[in-house]
């Protein structure tokens, strides 16, 4: 405890250098960076490619966006769930391989899949909260288990021939399907964060010991955040099915790195308590548009991993600089 105590709490604000004020700007608006980047790249994309095709592009964008949103839910609450991608695949296999053949492929499938997603998320949350396993390793293990189960359930890809799901890749009535799969969870989330639950969630992500001592039920809230992640992952599974009109066990780990990169870019600090789902979407958009632009400018896809890796490195470093506590004397 060697921090300087100033007598007056509201001393005259010293001149803040530009770099510092930019840092504060981005700290208060964690999604700003990715949003700006998205807008710029979107403009370039549309300018260079007149037939941008927003509906199809959105459909292709939905799985990575939802994977990032699902991962973000647990991360904001101070946990992490690396099995989101496997959960999405599980939902997809359940829908295509089991519910549809059993005649449950109609709208009845939606509540079933969401409940299953919530259960999977809850299980992951319990591993971290009740068994107190390090969330990284615990969720890696569950990703492994789930990937194995997916492989058992669908050793070869299963094709979906028709159904409402496929509409989500194009249009439902006049609304692009992907706007529904991304928009509905996003809207519900923005409602949630304004409730007591949202305030509790950000508090446990920011400092769980404080929240605990103030009377917040940290375990319950954290498990709930995993459960929400599970539900969003189920929606992601539906969007993925719509995009590829099939279920394929090999996608069990396809979105792990993409989701982490997206949330890091979107201003969601990996240790929790900062950022929001909008940032996750913006981060995912950056990734998606980078991929697009490589194609657009005829850059070979072999650059993809290099660019992703560099982007992620850049995102975590700037994220950490932005989130760093204000420098105080003698601290």
């Amino acid at each position, binding site marked *: 405890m060697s921090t300087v105590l100033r007598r007056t709490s509201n001393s005259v604000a010293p001149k803040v250098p530009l770099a510092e004020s930019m840092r504060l700007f981005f700290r208060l608006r964690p999604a700003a960076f990715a949003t700006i980047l998205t807008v710029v790249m979107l403009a370039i994309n549309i300018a260079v490619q007149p037939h941008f095709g927003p509906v199809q592009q959105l459909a292709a964008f939905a799985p990575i966006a939802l994977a990032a949103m699902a991962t973000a839910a647990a991360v904001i609450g101070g946990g992490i769930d690396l099995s989101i991608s496997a959960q999405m695949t599980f939902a997809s296999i359940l829908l295509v391989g089991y519910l549809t053949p059993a005649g449950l492929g109609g709208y009845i499938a939606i509540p079933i899949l969401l409940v299953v997603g919530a259960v999977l998320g809850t299980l992951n949350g319990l591993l971290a909260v009740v068994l107190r*396993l390090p969330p990284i390793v615990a969720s890696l*293990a569950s990703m*492994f288990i789930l990937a194995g189960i997916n492989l*058992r359930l669908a050793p070869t890809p299963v094709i979906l021939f028709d159904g409402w799901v496929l509409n989500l890749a194009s249009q439902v009535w006049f609304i692009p399907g992907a706007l529904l799969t991304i928009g509905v969870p996003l809207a519900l989330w923005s409602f949630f964060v304004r409730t007591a639950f949202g305030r509790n969630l950000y508090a446990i992500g920011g400092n769980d010991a404080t929240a605990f001592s103030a009377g917040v039920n940290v375990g319950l809230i954290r498990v709930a955040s995993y459960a929400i992640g599970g539900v969003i992952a189920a929606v992601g599974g539906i969007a993925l099915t719509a995009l590829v009109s099939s279920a394929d066990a090999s996608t069990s780990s396809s979105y792990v790195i993409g989701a*982490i990169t997206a949330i890091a870019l979107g201003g969601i600090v990996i240790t929790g308590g900062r950022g929001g789902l909008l940032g996750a979407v913006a981060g995912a958009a950056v990734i998606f548009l980078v991929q697009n632009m490589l194609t657009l400018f005829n850059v070979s896809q*072999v650059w993809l*991993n290099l*660019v992703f890796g560099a982007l992620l490195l850049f995102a*975590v470093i700037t994220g950490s600089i932005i989130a760093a506590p204000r420098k105080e004397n003698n601290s």
Partner: protein
Amino acid sequence: MTTLSAAAEPTIDERPRTTELLARAQSKFPLLQIAITVVAFLVGAFTLDGFASENSVKSLLILASLVGLAGIGQTLAILIGGVDMSVANFLVVGAVFVTQFTQLYGMSFTTALLLLVPFTAILGGFVGWVCHRFNVEPLVVTLAMGTFALGLMQIQTEGTIAGGAPGWLMALTSLRSTTFGLPFPPVIAIWAVVTVALAIFIHRTAVGRRMLAAGANGRAAGLSLIKVRRMWIVVFALSALFAGLAGVVLAAFSGTVNTSIGGPYLFQSLAAVIIGGTVFGGPGDYSRTVIGALMLTVITTVLIGHGLATSDQQILYGAVILIAMALYGRGRKMSDRV
């Protein structure tokens, strides 16, 4: 934080019971893991034909050595309190260097190996620096660096990562090869030598001791004149380097190289470290990882012999990691952190 558990005077508790004695022995030596390995081996020997034969034991050891070699860097990373998710991709990097690059650029195997060392060490060292300097999760940084390194390989090879290992290299892991006339392939000898060398490094050198201290309590280590950031840089450089070298062995083993060649070994090596009983920030040891790798290999081989599918194998790894973590890798209670 003044915690009273350490502050108040201790009082004499009741005498230790047998279970406590066993628990204490287990904390110093992985007895349980060895027992399970032996039991699994005996089960295999009695239920599977030829399981205990010389060739079968040799191939068990070859398989375990690959997991074990891939787990060197992971052990070090976990000992300092991190985790290395770039193992899989650095395995590919190592394999590509000695197979494709030798063909692509016409360099000799030795040159490729000599280039591999600084390449992996610099990328890995950068990871360690970033993690410590910016206080970010090694999980994310290693993921990023692994992807980046793989990207670099893909650019060099223009996307087609596919190479073949020369015959003499493949002899490294061949059942029929011998080591200085002894009837086992060199990879087993290499693994044994590495195990001893790492045991000496961790427990009998000043650097090893400082590394353990940096993992046990980074802040106290810094105040005890240990250059903690340098330790992080060294550990992650070594981790990438060992993964690259393990990739060379892996290329020898599988004969061909592709981008997904490393995948399974990331999780197996992580499982081996955790099953062996090495905990984030220590305590732990490479010899524990060796036991973990043997245990994992024996169990999977026996189960595969009884018809275990790849999918079940994955489920098994996941479950074993969870069980091992639940036994000795649990975090502190919320009430102890206030």
